[in-house]
């Protein structure tokens, strides 16, 4: 059982600064997800925690112990890689028991513990196979088996599901959540997939350009994104963002987007704000009769997803279309001219630097 703390951690490869001043505390037993676009430094952060990568600056603590200069094998961490990283020449059993064998555990005990781990991961019929005789999902289970057998205190996952097909990804996601519930150990999980992050995480750290943009529970990030980047990154389909100018008329703030004025009930706007961005999630738009609502729109495309539909709208607000999420059977079809209403309580406003105005 261990918490993980990063104090002022930075990493440069040569002259390229990849991670700037990272401060983070992961609680004991927490499942924290690093999510962000490709190349933002997620893997580097994970690899510094595992010890595979040295830090350029700063301090890493695991379970209250300073491990900044401790070898990876002595940090009591386990790592699961996107590529599974199974040894192709070893059987499944030998792969799972690898760490125990290195520690010169008696063969009988290795066999017993491998069997136990294989049973919990439901791969016991596969123990004699070679990795290349397994499917992607089975391989990832073996990799997870290898990592749990030594009872590590911290699990590190680097995009473990990215090589799997969509259906399997959802199943394995569930299994990792179960594993976390059962073992109750600290897990740090890296993904570029915001859905994976939302569904798995106790807390999410949204990473961009080597820094954490925001850290919080999934719903915190969804409901109160700290900036435009988080707002756009979390949630699928993405939040609609509409550029405009903030005005205050008779004490009531509003945002002018082209010809359209939208009244803002969302708190006081700091004086001096002018250029701003309005953000609204697709489910907070609704279709009303033509001529009513906040502005007019024309239905461009309707995507039926079964339980709900995504409606893409052309409006006079900006060149891009807006996305609206409605329950199925809305009766909308391409070409319809409608009015669009925004849920005034669910609007987000961002200043010219992209920071949320609350």
């Amino acid at each position, binding site marked *: 059982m261990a918490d993980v703390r990063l104090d002022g951690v930075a990493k440069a490869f040569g002259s390229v600064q990849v991670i700037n001043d990272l401060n983070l505390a992961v609680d004991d037993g927490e499942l924290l997800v690093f999510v962000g676009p490709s190349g933002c430094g997620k893997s580097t952060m994970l690899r510094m925690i*595992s*010890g*595979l990568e040295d830090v350029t600056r700063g301090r890493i603590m695991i379970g209250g112990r300073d491990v900044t200069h401790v*070898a*990876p*094998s*002595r940090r009591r*961490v*386990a*790592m699961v*890689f996107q*590529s599974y*990283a199974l*040894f*192709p*020449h070893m059987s499944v059993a030998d792969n799972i028991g*690898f*760490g125990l*064998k*290195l*520690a010169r555990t008696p063969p009988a005990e290795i066999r017993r513990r491998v069997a136990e781990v294989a049973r919990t991961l439901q791969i016991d019929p596969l123990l004699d196979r*070679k990795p*290349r005789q397994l499917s992607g999902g089975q391989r990832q289970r073996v990799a997870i088996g*290898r990592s749990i057998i*030594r009872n590590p205190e911290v699990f590190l996952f680097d995009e473990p599901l990215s090589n799997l097909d969509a259906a399997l990804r959802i199943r394995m996601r569930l299994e990792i959540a179960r594993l976390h519930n059962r073992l109750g150990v600290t897990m740090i999980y890296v993904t570029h997939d915001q859905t994976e992050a939302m569904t798995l995480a106790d807390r999410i750290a949204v990473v961009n350009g080597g820094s954490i943009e925001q850290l919080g529970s999934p719903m915190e990030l969804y409901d109160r994104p700290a900036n435009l980047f988080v707002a756009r990154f979390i949630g699928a389909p993405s939040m609609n963002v509409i550029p405009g100018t903030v005005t205050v008329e008779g004490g009531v703030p509003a945002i002018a987007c082209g010809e359209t004025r939208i009244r803002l009930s969302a708190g006081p706007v700091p004086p001096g704000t002018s250029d701003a961005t309005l953000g609204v999630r697709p489910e907070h738009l609704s279709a009303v009769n033509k001529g009513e609502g906040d502005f007019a729109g024309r239905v461009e495309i309707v995507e039926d997803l079964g339980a709900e539909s995504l409606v893409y709208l052309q409006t006079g607000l900006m060149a891009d279309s807006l996305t609206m999420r409605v329950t199925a059977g809305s009766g909308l079809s391409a070409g319809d001219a409608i009015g669009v209403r925004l849920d005034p309580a669910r609007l987000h406003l961002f200043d010219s630097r992209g920071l949320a105005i609350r």
Partner: protein
Amino acid sequence: MERENRFWRIVLLALPLAVFAVLVVWPLFSSFYYSFTNWNGFDSRYEFVGFRNFAKIYTDKLFLNAAINTAIWMVAAILLPTLLGLGLALLIDSRIPGGTIFKSVFYLPICLSAVVVGQIWVWIYQQDWGLLNTVIWTVTGERPAIAWLAKPETALGSVIVAWSWQQTGLSMVIYLAGLVSIQEELLEVCEIEGASAWQRIRLVIIPLLTPATIVVIALSVINSLKGFDILFIMTGGGPFHSSDTLAMHMYNESFRKYLMGYGSAISVVLFLIALTIIRIYFRQLRKLDEIHG
């Protein structure tokens, strides 16, 4: 279009095939043919003697001697360069300082012909002013009187060392390429799971280098089977046949004693031995292939 393609395919294949036929197939068949004759190498007259040449092999003490030497030569010439090459590759791969220089230094001998290598080592082994004896002299303070290549006990071993010096560079380069192709993450797993350097090499790196080992051993087998030139330069099979190999023996019988028929019979036997070794090797290879995929 298709027809034109076929035309060029045949033309382009014909030339190398013709060269192969003239330089390999024809000599092969003619030595089969002459092995049943008593031809002396230049007379236009000769007689067929049936299997008499092959019968002679049975009783030829020098043949047995050469066969034993060939076995020693092959085992040593396969083991030494393979193990040394692997060791060097692992050292250089572990990023010791000056690795690139080592790489060039050890690879250099491959660029030399066996004749040059042989001559260099003849100098090294020279009794009075050779490098080896000079070094021994400096270290021990005693002047050694060993004529390495002229003593029956040391001649074959000395040539094997020279040969290994050349071949090690080749296997080192192949192993280095093999090391590069090992997936980085597998080594990181070793690091996280706490493998010692020796455990990593024994349990992970060497098994993963199997494809490279297959190539290295194949080249060593083939090169050592035809290893003749360096022996010819350094000892000529002597002294007292102590470094004779089958290839050397065949040369002596054919071109020194002018027993071309008997020499051909030896070459046929050598050919069959080589064929057997190569077939065994390929059979093992297929088994390995089934495991590694």
